[in-house]
């Protein structure tokens, strides 16, 4: 990605997406409170369990420093013991996880014009808030 494009993206996120985030947090809180308030405890527990699993996987396999350090540790071990091929396995797992994320996002965005509808809705609300 070129620096000019990145700069535009960054400025856009700084000035516009903050509002979108606020709106999304509001929606998220409403959704969670609805799920918690339902009498069906099974659904809410399933929802929280799935959320926890996703969060832990995302925390382990991510671009964050600890995962990078873990890979560096594996490479260090491979330098000491050349017959080890651990970094290959971790790299493939990471690749698989990224593919899963990519296709799930692709599915979510393309399904029934999800992206278009949501952006329209959010921009409408932002305009309304601005007018107020």
């Amino acid at each position: 990605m070129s620096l000019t494009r990145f700069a535009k993206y960054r400025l856009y996120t700084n000035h516009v997406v903050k509002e979108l985030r606020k709106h999304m947090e509001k929606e998220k809180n409403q959704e969670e409170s609805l799920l918690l308030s339902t009498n069906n405890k099974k659904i809410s527990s399933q929802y929280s369990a799935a959320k926890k699993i996703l969060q832990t996987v995302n925390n382990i396999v991510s671009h964050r420093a600890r995962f990078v350090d873990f890979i560096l540790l594996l490479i260090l071990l491979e330098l000491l013991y050349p017959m080890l091929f651990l970094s290959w396995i971790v790299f493939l797992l990471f690749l698989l996880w990224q593919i899963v994320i990519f296709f799930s996002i692709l599915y979510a965005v393309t399904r029934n014009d999800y992206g278009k509808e949501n952006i329209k809705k959010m921009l409408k609300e932002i305009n309304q808030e601005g007018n107020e």
Partner: protein
Amino acid sequence: MKDIISTFREIREKNYGYNYSHYPYLAQWKRNPYTFFKAKLYLELGTILVFLLLKTRIKPNTVTVAYIMLVIAGGICLAIPMKFLILVGIIIFYFVGSLDWADGPLARERNQTSITGDILDPYSALVGMTCFWSGIGLYLVHKSIQGVIYISPDITNFTSCLFTSHNSSIICNESYKIC
């Protein structure tokens, strides 16, 4: 001497205060022990860097550019199949974050915060990640070639034993033992 120590302490306290107030999880060592340790390391190294850089004319954005150059060098080091260079790459990627943690406090100390810095900072992280994964990819390519070389004597001996007579297979078996 006392002045130097007091300014160093001041910078350190400011640095800790800013980071712990913005990212409270950095101080929770029970929940994130490794993150806690790494943040401490970066904070201490970052404070030392800021303290030293304050005595020079180096701008915060120059520090960010230096970070970008270092991660590119680290990626190249990881990609070259030489033990020493791979080790250098590992060391670079382990400690390079301290530069990323030093440019912000330096800008705040000198009142040189800017939009350019705000853009450059995440961009450097993006370049860092790209260089890291590219370096790792090329490292793995070399590693797999190395693996083929390790396994190949076994394969060649095995195939030659399959397609030769009984006597020659004994010779092959002997050579296999030697391999």
